[in-house]
């Protein structure tokens, strides 16, 4: 085995070999999916190429371009030959939605170190924001305007929902952040439940959310007059927002604000003593994290065409948390991987195994009690994952790595700066 891995190491050493290997992989798995359009395994293997890409020794920009091309062109194109096209795209959409949410929670938990167990509330707020105005629900309490609004407003609502969710994040944050440490977890859990109960009950005295009946017949979005209804179209919307979210997260992570978050996480008192306003910094984490969820809430509502409070339970909040823990707290690629793994496990792998088992029992008369179906054991599986990762791999699948700066370059710049200072030579003492 060691010799084998040494062999691969040798192959993998040169950049050219890596590229060739990677392209072969994409082509083979792509062909696999093309020839075997209904095989979930082939689909997953093709997706796996993204992870390989992440570890390749290429420059960053090339990786990004390749990744986007694979996800936006190669995968949908090959999958479109399959009968399961819409299923694949549905999974892709869900992965996109949850990745964005997990990245949002990652800001709160991973960067700022605040455990939020009611995160799904912001998703709910986003979903309801669109649902209310894109169905005739709004006409039940709004004194003016004509509802439902047209599908074209969807695009505006993505941003409105981001803002509304951010406002909710701040509103919840102001009282919540006065609470310390572990209490925060329980208080956010409480807030999550309060929001859910309110959504489920606000049908009287004023009918705002239509209570437990939920809001049905939500107008599908339209894009220059084309009505968007199928999963392959939503896939691109989710993908675009996901890219936006990654961009924001990557930029913020190493910005002044991102450093402030991590400083607060590592040591609140020291962070304050360095001039970091605690409340403002934490609120920013809450608000920005929430806004990602809000945006995806709109996509979710538009995709489902129906929302009710049952989609926003405590369990959903913890699922998002599982994604973050599994992937690696604070690690952006890790969290994305975590979200993808959890969603694919939930919607594809477990379902497939369950179907396979039930097919076995009906085809071959082997009786497998339905209690055994892995689909039902989600809690168990994710519970074990949480425990195992917390105990043995706290840093997650892809641990967070601090970005390293180029010291040689810094040194040169510093010398140059010193030189120019000397030249101007007025003798300002401080650096």
């Amino acid at each position, binding site marked *: 085995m060691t010799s084998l891995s040494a062999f691969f190491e040798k192959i993998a050493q040169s950049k050219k070999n890596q590229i060739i290997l990677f392209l072969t992989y994409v082509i083979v798995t792509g062909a696999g999916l093309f020839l075997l359009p209904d095989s979930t395994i082939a689909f997953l293997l093709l997706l796996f190429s993204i992870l390989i890409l992440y570890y390749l020794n290429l420059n960053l920009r090339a990786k990004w371009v390749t990744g986007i091309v694979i996800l936006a062109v190669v995968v949908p194109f090959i999958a479109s030959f399959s009968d399961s096209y819409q299923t694949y795209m549905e999974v892709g959409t869900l992965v996109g939605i949850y990745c964005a949410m997990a990245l949002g929670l990652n800001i709160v938990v991973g960067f700022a170190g605040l455990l939020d167990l009611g995160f799904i509330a912001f998703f709910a707020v986003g979903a309801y924001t669109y649902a209310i105005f894109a169905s005739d629900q709004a006409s039940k309490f709004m004194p003016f305007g004509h509802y439902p609004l047209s599908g074209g407003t969807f695009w505006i609502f993505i941003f409105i929902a981001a803002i509304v969710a951010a406002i909710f994040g701040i509103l919840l944050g102001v009282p919540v952040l006065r609470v310390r440490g*572990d*209490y925060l977890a329980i208080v956010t859990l409480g807030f999550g*439940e309060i929001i859910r109960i309110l959504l489920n009950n606000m049908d*009287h005295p004023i009918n705002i959310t239509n209570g437990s009946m939920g809001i049905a017949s939500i107008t599908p979005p339209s894009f220059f007059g084309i009505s968007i209804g199928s999963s392959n179209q939503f896939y691109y919307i989710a993908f675009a927002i996901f890219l936006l979210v990654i961009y924001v997260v990557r930029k913020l992570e190493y910005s002044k604000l991102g450093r402030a978050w991590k400083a607060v996480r590592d040591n609140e008192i020291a962070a304050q003593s360095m001039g970091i306003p605690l409340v403002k910094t934490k609120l920013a984490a809450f608000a920005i994290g929430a806004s990602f969820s809000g945006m995806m809430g709109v996509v979710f509502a538009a995709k489902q065409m129906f929302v009710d409070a049952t989609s926003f339970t405590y369990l959903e909040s913890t699922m998002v948390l599982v994604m973050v823990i599994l992937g690696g707290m604070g690690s952006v690629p890790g969290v994305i991987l975590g979200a993808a793994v959890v969603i694919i496990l939930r919607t594809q792998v477990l379902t497939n195994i369950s179907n396979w088992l039930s097919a076995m029992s009906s085809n071959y008369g082997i009786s497998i*009690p339905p209690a*055994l179906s892995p689909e*039902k054991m989600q809690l*168990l599986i994710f519970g074990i994952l949480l425990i195992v990762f917390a105990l043995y791999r706290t840093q997650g699948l892809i641990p967070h790595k601090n970005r390293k700066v180029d010291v040689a370059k810094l040194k040169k710049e510093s010398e140059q700066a010193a030189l120019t200072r000397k030249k101007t030579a007025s003798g300002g003492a401080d650096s």
Partner: protein
Amino acid sequence: MLAHIIQNLPQVLIDGLTLGVVYAVVAIGYTMVYGILELINFAHGDVFMTGAFIGAIVLFLLMGMGFLAALPAILVFIIVIVIAAIATGLLGVGIERVAYRPLRKKNAPKLIALITSIGISFVLEDLVRFIAELKTGNYIVTAPPMFNHKFTLNLHSALPFFNNATFQSSFLLVLIVTIIMLIALDLFVNKTKWGMAMRAVAQDRDTASLMTINVNRVISVTFFIGSALGGATGVLFMIQYGTIDPYIGFILGIKAFTAAVLGGIGNIRGAMFGGVMLGLLEMFAASNLSIITHGAMGAEYKDVFAFIILILVLIFKPEGLFGKAVVEKV
């Protein structure tokens, strides 16, 4: 409006007390663990649930063997509650060994321990569901009726502004057993060597370990007692309400935690008080909210009020109604 509320008060007090003592004993489990480890043991609500199920299993076994008819009900009850308490106590110790102790050794952040406890709570819920479903095809389990003799408190004839109140003999059982448990625990913590060690560890773990106290042993004992009390309460719950499912632990656990916070976390007497108070408040809200708000808000908002109480207490008096303020050392 007020007349309505007063009429109902005796009944509300009885029902609230039943629920309140259940909260109180479960809250003690939270408070003991938090006092010693500063960890919110999310799994505790599910330990309570497991206790209820173990009790049900023992009860069914006894029934299968024909003991239920042969022995007096109170004896059967004692057998069931003792077995369930011991089993859940051991479960609690096991959970601590497997999931929390390794983290303590690694000096992992509290966040991680909290997440582990969420994981354990998931595992317990699903395992119990799985076993129940495999055995009965349905995870909602109904226990054979016990202690269901009905009493009527004839208040109306003596005090005409009250309605009569009714309760079952199981109410008395719940009340008596929980009071016994609470007094026993109070004595244990305040009068015995182990209790003293527990308080010492809660005060300052490092110093306690220097004083030749085996901290790990003390933590195990704490988990055993907290979990055993939780499990025993599960049995009481099963007898009082008759029906249990694997998800009763979650929401009850959160409420019990609220009770613990209300009384000042780490404070055992505070937890008892907080539990009873929360039970009464909740029952009062459920039966009177719609009267008070003229139908704008109904009983469905009672949980919202429980959570709002929790949040308000944590914000304005985080040390609870009976706790002392703590200053972080810098």
